[in-house]
């Protein structure tokens, strides 16, 4: 009789002690492989052109990014030529200040290795890019990278 009653007690609880370990493993994987989103985009995410001769950007801390594209806020107009520096929409004239600001954060020896990555939309105008480029040249930020997704050419 007593044996019979014991069975009725129900299933033993499933041991889930290993579950946190698995989840932590996933967590560490994500912590290691990803990077923090640094800025809020004030423009629509640029549709990057694709190119075959792309190089990976190394040393993320030495990269400052300039976004060019269409502003989300319609008060800035609907053209694809708005420039975003840090968290706000600016003009090409703000570029030197932006670069100088970025330079403050790295040691002097590393300044020549700093790269400016231009993430511009496919439909932006070359004129806007040229304006940025001239300003970059004024402050001697000569390494630039035109952001592009890796893919075939001829499209």
């Amino acid at each position, binding site marked *: 009789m007593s044996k019979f009653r014991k069975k009725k007690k129900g299933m033993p609880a499933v041991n*889930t*002690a290993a*579950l*946190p370990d698995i*989840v*932590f493993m*996933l*967590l560490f994987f*994500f*912590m290691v*492989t*990803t*990077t*923090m*989103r640094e800025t809020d985009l004030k423009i629509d995410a640029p549709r990057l*052109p694709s*190119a*075959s*001769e*792309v*190089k*990976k*950007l190394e040393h*993320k801390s030495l*990269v400052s990014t300039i976004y*060019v594209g269409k502003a989300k806020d319609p008060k800035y107009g609907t053209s694809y030529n708005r420039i975003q520096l840090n968290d706000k929409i600016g003009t090409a004239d703000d570029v030197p200040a932006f670069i100088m600001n970025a330079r403050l954060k790295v040691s002097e020896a590393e300044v020549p290795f700093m*790269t400016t*990555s*231009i993430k*511009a*939309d*496919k*439909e*932006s*105008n*070359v*004129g*806007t*890019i*040229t304006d940025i*480029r001239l300003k*970059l*040249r*004024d402050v*001697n930020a*000569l*390494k*630039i*990278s*035109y*952001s*592009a*997704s*890796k893919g075939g*050419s*001829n*499209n």
Partner: protein
Amino acid sequence: MARRENPEINAGSMADIAFLLLIFFLVTTTMNVDSGVSKKLSEKPPPDYVPPIIKEKNIFEVNINRNNELLVEGERMEVKDLKDAAIAFIDNGGGEGNVEEGVKTGPCTYCKGERSESSSDHPNKAIISVQSDRGTEYGTYLTVQNELLRAYSELRNRLSMEKYKIPFSELEEAYKDDKENEALKKKVEDIKKSYPQIISDAEPTN
């Protein structure tokens, strides 16, 4: 006294906490690898700078108009033909090379081009000049730049295959992994010097 067993600590919520952290990271981070076409801008010329006189035949002119059409050396061209045209120009080898550090490079011995009188003298003299309109689409501009870079990498790969039996892209990769290796460095520099990338951006037209 009977030994009492340690009461088990309830770790049931540990998984929840870990999940919470995991989801936080999933949301706030990005995984994309940044890649792009890298370029080096030329330095700002001093105010009294006089640009050197370059022979017309050593300049490969690429114009992009505001309708994203190409004009190469005065003739209309499709983007897909640009790479081959650029290769023909760079690899022409019709004359003497530059004098570098007091040493004459002489005629281009590794060039496979036509050695035409009207095209470039030597890869180290060949200049590609890209001029675009302010209204040109950036996508087209970058495609053109990419095609020109492809022309250079094809030539570099070819030369590297001939000299060292390994494509230049792999040679460069190997050098990146082993920066100390002087022999590799020499090879990379040699190929780079044989086909230097000289692509200049002219002021855009309005």
